[in-house]
């Protein structure tokens, strides 16, 4: 108990409480390094333990990613570690209980594994595709993907399809790399930075660090976003834009930059396909394709340099990059055989002719003058503030360069552009804008991170036939890949999808990260087929990670006429109680990040820097809580029991003791020297990137801040698409198969191949008749603008507003509502409405309102804002929770005032005239179109409860979970005198 001393009230000289004295002088102190996992950023952290408890977690100053800083989430790891929402025991739904009722019983891991091995063994022996494995932001897709492939199921994907796959696909199919893990803005040398539609956590600490330095060094920062929060708050200029119209803005900027000659001609000529000639004979099978010479073509996934330029000097067609040649970028020509051709750049100019700033003003809400000024700022900064670094390098054609040149204009964009059904083409347009400015992999512009750049598209392919799915056999190909033409699609002979999510089918051909958001609906409907077991890892598919949440929840419990569940068996692995675990038949309790081994692998999404490859590990700093088991260990054990080839010896015996053993010893092929970790390979740890397994590899990572950073020579750090030295290094180290130059696809022949197939012109596979028009429309080899599909299908008079979400910097997905400190920052969310819009609707600040789309409605509270454009309403995503979920009390703000916008967003578009329903997604990539929804808002009735709607049945606490305390006074370690 606290004792008060009243006797010495005048003394200010000698305080009784010595503020400098340690409260725990005798405590055992330890510091352990590992990698954070409070979000996907993956900073290096130091965990300070006192008497075995977490005293504090701070950033590791010697880590290349964060250099010692840490964010709000990372600093709150303690509250995740000791959260009462943690699952601690394997649980089975009580046999007599209904799924979703939350009635579970404890079982042992042995029983858990035998249930899984028996069920999955039967599926594998009969029809492996009836097992579907879908994961959230798991950071271990190389392992989960390997497991799925070994199992033999095509039905695997991670969360990318409902996250930002358009950003990855749009950029990778254009420049051979993309933002975040694979590349980003070089703010160290940039002068002008434009951020478009970026959520507050993509990319987290490194972006904050860089942005601050950039601003302090006098860089100019422009934010284009319907909302001004977070990063946008410190922008020198905020340009509000209507959601889903970014493509129109990009095209108008391109229009202006070409019209004024503000493009980097030399860059376009040498490093892009701008000058290459395209066959424009409409009768020809090769219409819209580049004209090729007879140069023999080696099989491979790269661009052979066998295209043509029209040479300005000799006035005839020559092979691209011919010595002394200078191609026309504009003009139309006839080949000697009479074939009409134009350079790609001419087609781009033709394309943007009508995309004037005045045209874009009507669509985006940004004045034509502002659009022109933005184009001028970009073009003039790129041209007049050019950087030249004295770095000699050799290009792919053998030409020596004395220096590396950079045009210091950089961009960053994320889900704001991606999560629209027109996102792929918008991002193609952004990539082309960046290209016109000559900013790709150059100082001050966009820079790649290893393992990118890769060929366009990268070489990995899915199988292209259902024959690849066979009982007791690994899948013959990758579950996720990069189609380069219609023959790469993973479809049945009749053109129907092989995968449950219809990825890589004619409906969403370039769905390179699958369509996780349609898995439950498709499986429930049995379209394209029924499955047996759905294993979800770390994805809240019963709540914020799904669209149409209320209906999807019903699908999870819906039954056939015979009383069987339509999705017969659902397994959920997670560290926390959630809305989704409630629908599980089997729950596997995962560990936290402080209790596990993990790798941020070069085979997945490593944490590379601009200057070279970086991978990292997690090493447990404390033992697992309860019976928690890392999902990695679950997969290794299950793979071994199922005798999946990589996990067992020829005799069918266990090959790997555990996950750490697997990481050290597994190689992509025996003797390949390529494994999950690139550092300290070779028997004694003397090799990098490739080498024999090193039994002490974990220890070497542990000694080196849990990170391996290979700094490349300066001459390999720029121009990597065409840098002979870098590409050969990359090839030698088997990061890429080819060392051919990666020309930027201003014009996308890949898209044209699909269009030709849809037009019945090519010899490749052709789409089913009902999809031909869709393919022909959207697979345009040049970017174009179309209104988002859902918007097209909405009554815009009735639903005049766009509704979007973003995530706050202090929360990651739905994870942090169970975090006692972070939920004090965001305990519930409001719908932010422009004050004028709200007042016109008769809504007062803080009042209860309905937000309604054509799909449903949600009751929530309105908050006036001047930081949102008048046609948009927005909220923080995933703050709203179902009552009782995450072990919060039934009256917690998250479930009473907090709300989930997902209820008004559909996972499917309205039915087509033929009754078919397509995913509410980009028709090219299958990216979930979260931000296309149109809504209206109106005041809630005076008689209605002041509580969010819809509400759901109160979720129960499971066995092994603690009752949450009514107060908390966390103190890590034992306080002096035993007081805690």
């Amino acid at each position, binding site marked *: 108990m606290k004792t008060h001393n*009243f006797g010495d*009230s*005048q003394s200010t000289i000698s*305080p*009784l409480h*010595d*503020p*400098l*004295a*340690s*409260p725990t002088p005798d405590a055992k102190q330890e510091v352990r390094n590992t990698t954070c996992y409070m979000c996907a950023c993956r900073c290096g952290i130091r965990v300070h333990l006192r008497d075995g408890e977490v005293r*504090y977690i*701070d*950033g590791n100053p010697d880590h290349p990613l964060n250099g010692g800083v840490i*964010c709000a989430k*990372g*600093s709150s790891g303690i509250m995740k570690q000791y959260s009462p929402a943690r699952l601690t025991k394997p649980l089975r739904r009580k046999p007599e209980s209904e799924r979703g009722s939350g009635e579970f019983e404890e079982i042992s891991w042995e029983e858990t594994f035998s249930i899984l091995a028996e069920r999955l063994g039967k599926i594998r022996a009969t029809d492996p595709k009836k097992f579907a494995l879908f994961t959230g932001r798991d950071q271990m897709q190389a392992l989960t993907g390997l497991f799925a492939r070994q199992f033999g199921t095509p039905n695997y994907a991670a969360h990318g399809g409902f996250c930002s796959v358009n950003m990855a696909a749009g950029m990778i199919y254009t420049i051979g790399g993309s933002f975040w893990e694979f590349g980003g803005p070089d703010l160290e040398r940039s002068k002008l930075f434009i951020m478009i539609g970026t959520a*507050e956590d993509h990319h987290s*600490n490194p972006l904050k660090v860089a942005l*601050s330095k950039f*601003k302090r060094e006098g860089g100019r*920062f422009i934010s284009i976003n319907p909302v001004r*929060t*977070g990063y*946008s708050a*410190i922008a020198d200029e905020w340009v509000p834009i209507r959601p889903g119209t970014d493509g129109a803005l990009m095209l108008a900027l391109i229009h202006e930059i070409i019209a*004024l*000659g*503000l493009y*980097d*001609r030399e860059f376009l000529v040498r490093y892009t396909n701008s000058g290459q000639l395209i066959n424009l004979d409409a009768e020809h099978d090769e219409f819209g394709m580049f004209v090729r010479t007879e140069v023999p073509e080696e099989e491979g996934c790269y661009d052979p340099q066998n295209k043509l330029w029209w040479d300005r000097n000799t006035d005839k067609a020559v092979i691209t990059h011919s010595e002394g040649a200078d191609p*026309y970028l*504009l*003009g139309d*020509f006839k080949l000697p055989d009479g074939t009409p051709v134009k350079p790609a750049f001419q087609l781009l100019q033709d394309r943007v002719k009508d995309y004037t700033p005045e045209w874009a003003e009507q669509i985006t809400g940004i004045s034509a003058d502002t659009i022109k000024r933005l184009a001028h*700022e970009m073009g*003039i900064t790129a041209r*007049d503030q050019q950087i030249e670094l004295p770095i000699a390098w050799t290009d792919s054609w053998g030409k020596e360069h004395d220096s590396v040149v950079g045009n210091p204009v950089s961009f960053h964009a994320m889900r704001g552009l991606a999560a629209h059904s027109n996102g792929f083409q918008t991002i193609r347009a952004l990539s082309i804008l960046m290209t016109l400015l000559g900013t790709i992999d150059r100082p001050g512009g966009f820079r790649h991170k290893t393992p990118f750049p890769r060929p366009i598209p990268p070489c990995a392919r899915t199988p292209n036939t259902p024959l690849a799915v066979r009982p007791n056999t690994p899948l013959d190909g990758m579950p996720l890949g990069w189609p380069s033409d219609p023959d790469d699609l993973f479809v049945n002979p009749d053109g129907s999808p092989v995968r449950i999510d219809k990825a890589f089918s004619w409906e969403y051909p370039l769905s390179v990260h699958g369509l996780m958001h349609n898995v439950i609906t498709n499986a429930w409907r049995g379209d394209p087929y029924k499955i047996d077991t759905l294993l979800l890892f770390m994805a809240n598919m019963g709540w914020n990670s799904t669209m149409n949440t209320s209906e999807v929840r019903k699908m999870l419990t819906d039954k056939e006429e015979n009383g069987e569940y339509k999705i017969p068996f659902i397994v959920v692995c997670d560290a926390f109680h959630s809305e989704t675990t409630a629908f599980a038949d089997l729950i596997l309790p995962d560990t936290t990040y402080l209790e596990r081994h993990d790798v941020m692998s070069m085979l997945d999404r490593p944490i590379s820097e601009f200057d070279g490859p970086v991978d990292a590990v997690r090493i447990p700093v404390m033992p697992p809580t309860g019976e928690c088991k890392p999902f990695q260990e679950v997969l290794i054990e299950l793979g071994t029991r199922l005798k999946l080839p990589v996990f067992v010896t020829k005799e069918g015996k266990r090959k790997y003791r555990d996950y750490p053993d697997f990481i050290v010893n597994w190689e992509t092929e025996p003797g390949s020297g390529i494994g999950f970790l690139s550092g300290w390979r070779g028997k004694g740890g003397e090799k990098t990137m490739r080498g024999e397994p090193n039994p002490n590899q974990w220890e070497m990572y542990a000694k080196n801040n849990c990170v391996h950073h290979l700094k490349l020579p300066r001459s390999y750090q720029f121009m990597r698409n065409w840098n002979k030295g870098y590409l050969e290094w990359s090839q030698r180290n088997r990061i890429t198969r080819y060392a051919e130059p990666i020309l930027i696809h201003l014009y996308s022949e890949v898209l044209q191949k699909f269009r030709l197939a849809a037009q019945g012109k090519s010899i490749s596979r052709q789409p089913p008749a009902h999809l031909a028009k869709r393919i022909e429309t959207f697979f345009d080899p040049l970017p174009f603008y179309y209104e988002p599909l859902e918007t097209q299908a909405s009554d815009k008079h009735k639903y005049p507003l766009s509704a979007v979400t973003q995530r706050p*910097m*202090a929360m990651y997905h739905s994870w942090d509502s*169970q975090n*006692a*400190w*972070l939920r*004090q920052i965001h*305990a519930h969310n409001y719908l932010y409405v422009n*004050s004028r819009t709200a007042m016109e609707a008769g809504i007062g600040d803080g009042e209860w309102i309905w937000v309604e789309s054509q799909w449903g409605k949600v009751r929530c509270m309105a908050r006036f804002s*001047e*930081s949102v454009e*008048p046609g948009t309403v927005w909220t923080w995503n995933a703050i709203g929770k179902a009552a009782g979920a995450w072990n*919060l*009390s039934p009256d*917690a703000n998250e479930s*009473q005032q907090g709300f989930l916008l997902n209820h008004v967003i559909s996972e499917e578009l309205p039915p087509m005239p033929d009754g078919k329903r397509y995913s509410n997604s980009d028709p090219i990539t299958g990216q979930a179109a979260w931000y296309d929804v149109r809504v209206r808002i109106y005041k809630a009735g005076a008689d209605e409860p002041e509580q969010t709607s819809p509400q759901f049945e109160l979720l129960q606490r499971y066995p092994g979970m603690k009752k*949450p305390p009514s*107060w908390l*006074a*966390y*103190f890590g*370690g034992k306080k002096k005198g035993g007081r805690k």
Partner: protein
Amino acid sequence: MTQLALVIDLNVCVGCHACVTSCKEWNTSGSAGPLYDENPYGADPTGTFFNRVQTFEVGQFPHTETVHFPKSCLHCEDPPCVPVCPTGASYKRKQDGIVLVDYDKCIGCKYCTWACPYGAREIDEKQQVMKKCTLCVDRIYDMSLPENDRKPSCVKACPTSARLFGDIHDSESEVSLAIREEGGYALMPEWGTHPANHYLPRRKTKLKIHEDELERADNPLKVDGKLPKPGKGEPSMEDVSAW
């Protein structure tokens, strides 16, 4: 005489709350801890935080500024919280100017809360004592930590390094330099409290484009605009023109 203080750069603060929770995690297990949280998993959770970020909007759409404003004890040079304290618990350290609460003397009467014009004090509802930012006094002198770590937790955490820490009485210090050269200001100077903490204002970078800069002599359109010449043998009017 030394006066330690924070200088907070609003020009780069993105409102991420790193300072808020890194402060909480250090101090809850430090000499000021534990820091109490009430209803941590229930309705209206609330707890003791020494440092909070307020976000507000200035101006009307579209001329809106969104300001993230981190706020903690300003360690006033003339702190009104000290003389009002009936027990002498509230005091200002002579050696470094840090304003502290002696928890063993505090009776939780809240006079200091009323006296503080900045709302920087936080009552610990469990211990019924007043708590507040200590500038991590139990950290910055801890010789067992590497020198680089002897900084307030918030300063070390801040990803945008928006928080500078040092002696504002040392005219050569980083913080004095920032105040002098970046327009550093104190909050509500009219109260005469002479806050030691200062804030740096937003600064805008603009680009002025003169119209004659738009086109340069080497405009690529001069090359690309030159279309190919027609072939010599192609028909022309000259072939048929009558004199």
